[in-house]
């Protein structure tokens, strides 16, 4: 599939008959040409039925308010019936995890995990995060081109995850690896070419964590995630399948999302030097900038639901069993709710009001931890007057779910 220029994309987005518009194509996410398609849908067919695609038929919800209405209506729109990504999986390939459960099971499991990222515990983590950030930033090469994604985005979030799990630090890159495998849709010609292969690798992940579980269940309850899961009444008798599922949830949820916001922030500041200047001149804008970075990146482009009964979204009739995709990435560009939504503005009004973490009972449980990591990173970059220049085109991930970067070539002047 050849790279399409932004201009050609815009032409095609407006020329293509609506009935043929399939926004789920991964290539468009890789080429970053999704924007005119979503713009057209928001304007002309905000609740859009695509009758055939690589993922079968599906509804796209593209406006902020409609997305909010679906996200908060968990009684009608289930996370359990078909899972939470556009891909349909055989039951045997699905790992049970609370993001893909409905109440009451969802509630019990989420409440077990939630305390580790509650405000009091975050205060305890701040010192350690800052130490790790400083060590990484101080180790970066000067006057030399390197990949920010690898040396900072992945490294920082992986270290954070290892800390949360009290995972053996020297093996931490396994967490990145397993996270990437978990979000990979198997394709011929790739390293992960079958669901079975994917399953086998994730089986190794389960084995490793089961070892840690067995160590910690016999020890005093600790404040790491594994210990919490092993000791809490609602999770200590989890079947291995469910344990793996929740582990994957926490690894993925805490890993490539934050990773891609770290990369995105550097890219956006480079593309918008006026905003970088604002931040340099006023460090108090860091929290606001962090929210804007997360909105602008929207690290998870969509979340999926299944309608449990016949219903309506906007003026469209949805049938029981229909697949419904909430395109957070589109809702976060909705001018009807967010002023000048297609611009990166770090001091906008209500910067925290965006869809990147979702809303309702499934709202990202780690959202404050993500913000904390980003806040500390930008504070320490400002403290060092680090001028990170992007020196080449970013390489994006070919995924309609994970919205992120595999490479961001940068250079820091000495």
């Amino acid at each position, binding site marked *: 599939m050849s790279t399409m220029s932004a201009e050609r994309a815009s032409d095609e987005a407006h020329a293509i008959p609506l009935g043929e518009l399939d926004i789920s194509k991964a290539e468009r996410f890789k080429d970053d040409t999704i924007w005119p398609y979503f713009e057209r849908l928001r304007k002309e067919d905000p609740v859009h039925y695509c009758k055939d695609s690589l993922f079968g038929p599906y509804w796209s919800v593209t406006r902020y308010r409609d997305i*909010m209405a679906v996200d908060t209506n968990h009684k009608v729109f289930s996370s359990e019936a078909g899972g939470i990504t556009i891909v349909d999986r055989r039951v045997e390939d699905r790992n049970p995890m609370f993001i893909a459960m409905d109440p009451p099971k969802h*509630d019990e499991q989420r409440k077990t995990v*939630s305390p580790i990222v509650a405000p009091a515990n975050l205060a305890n983590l701040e010192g350690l995060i800052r130490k790790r950030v400083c060590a990484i930033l101080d180790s970066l090469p000067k006057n030399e081109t390197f990949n920010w994604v690898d040396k900072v985005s992945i490294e920082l979030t992986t270290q954070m995850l290892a800390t949360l799990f009290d995972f053996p630090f020297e093996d931490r890159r396994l967490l990145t690896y397993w996270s990437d495998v978990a979000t990979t849709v198997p394709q011929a010609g790739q390293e992960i070419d079958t669901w079975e292969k994917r399953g086998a690798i994730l089986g190794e992940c389960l084995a490793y964590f089961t070892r840690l579980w067995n160590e910690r269940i016999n020890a005093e309850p600790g404040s790491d995630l594994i210990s919490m899961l092993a000791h809490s009444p609602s999770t200590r008798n989890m079947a291995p399948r469910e344990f793996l599922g929740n582990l994957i949830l926490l690894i993925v949820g805490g890993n490539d999302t934050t990773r891609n916001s770290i990369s995105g922030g550097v890219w956006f500041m480079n593309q918008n030097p006026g905003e970088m200047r604002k931040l340099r001149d006023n460090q108090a804008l860091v929290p606001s900038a962090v929210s804007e970075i997360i909105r602008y990146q929207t690290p998870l482009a969509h979340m999926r639901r299944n309608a449990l009964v016949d219903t309506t979204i906007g003026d469209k009739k949805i049938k029981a069993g229909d697949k419904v995709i909430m395109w957070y990435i589109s809702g976060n560009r909705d001018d009807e709710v967010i002023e000048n939504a297609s611009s990166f503005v770090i001091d906008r009004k209500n910067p*925290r009001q965006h869809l990147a973490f979702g809303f309702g*009972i499934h*709202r990202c449980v780690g959202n404050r931890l993500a913000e904390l990591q980003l806040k500390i990173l930008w504070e320490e970059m400002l403290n060092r007057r680090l001028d990170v220049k992007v020196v080449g085109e970013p390489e994006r991930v070919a995924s309609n779910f994970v919205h992120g970067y595999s490479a961001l070539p940068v250079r820091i002047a000495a």
Partner: protein
Amino acid sequence: MPTVNFIEFGGHEHRIEVPAGTSVMRAAVDNRVPGIDGDCGGECACATCHVYVDQAWLPKTGERTATEEELLGFASGTEPNSRLACQIRMTDALDGLLVRMPEGQH
């Protein structure tokens, strides 16, 4: 105009005038009172406007809605006097309302 007294976790007080009909969350956010976020903009969809209503005032604010109850179940440090500030609409009868903010919003 009726006023609300917001007390930060650390004890710092803010006395804010809130017109009748405005939610307590909206008043806090618009007046930059620290400790209340209101990420969802008042749609009862996030629980980041969690407050503790002073016992003397609690009955006057009314009952939690079903959705509010559900979301408070996920908030940190929920107590019997917890409410979501976006679900408390200001009235003259609430003049002097006293609320305390939690350690942090989640």
